[in-house]
């Protein structure tokens, strides 16, 4: 099983992976492609990954959750490829016997993902340009590249743009 997918994410499917009657508190996080006042007309973000390592790193993060919160169970999916504004790129669900653990562990997972998982994004703008996003959330200063990115490895394999 891979934690990466090219399909739209569903919290309900992830909930099924982690919920059980002993775990009464479930915290979920969805990260969606933003197009707000700070974003200057982002129509979509193209996510690419070092697939094998991203998958391994996500698995390691889930193992850490089990070590730190032994009674909690976490599930995660990272969507890659071209994701339209408003749709989710990351879904995390953590179920635990009590809510404090669920909130803490869910926050841990998203913070570790931001810090460690080798995924990159390129904003696709209304004006047709594309800009690599740096981890602070700001576009990089490198010149916009108006051509589609060839660097999503899954995209190539599966024949997507």
């Amino acid at each position, binding site marked *: 099983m891979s934690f990466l997918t090219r399909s739209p994410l569903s919290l309900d499917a992830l909930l099924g992976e982690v919920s059980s009657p002993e775990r009464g508190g479930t915290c979920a996080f969805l990260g969606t492609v933003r197009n707000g006042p700070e974003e200057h007309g982002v129509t979509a973000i193209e996510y690419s990954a070092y697939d094998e390592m991203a998958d391994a790193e996500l698995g390691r993060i889930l193992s850490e959750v089990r070590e730190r919160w032994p009674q909690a169970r976490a599930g995660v999916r990272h969507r890659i490829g071209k994701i339209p504004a408003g749709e989710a*790129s990351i879904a995390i669900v953590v179920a635990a016997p009590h809510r404090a653990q669920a909130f803490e562990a869910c926050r841990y997972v998203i913070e570790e993902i931001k810090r460690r998982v080798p995924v990159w994004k390129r904003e696709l703008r209304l004006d047709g340009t594309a800009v690599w996003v740096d981890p602070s959330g700001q576009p990089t200063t490198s010149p916009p590249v108006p051509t589609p990115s060839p660097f999503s490895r899954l995209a190539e394999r599966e024949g997507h743009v």
Partner: protein
Amino acid sequence: MQLSVASGTVRVQFFARYAEMVGCREAAIVVTLPATVGDVVRRVREELPGARGLPERPLTAVNLKHVKLDASVQDGDEVALLPPVAGG
């Protein structure tokens, strides 16, 4: 008298902006062993066209794990040069 020098070949992978700069996604790099990830990065920056623009101390991974530049590499390792990650 002949000095026997061990050498190894590592597969180096480039991603996102780095792949654009280097113009390719993967390269085979030969290094004299023992060698570190830092040695590999130096060879990449010297040998590959476009690789001069890479940072001297990029994020790196060996065999799917984050490592520091002083980590050692073996023949056959997969070394990755990673732009700052932006997942989630």
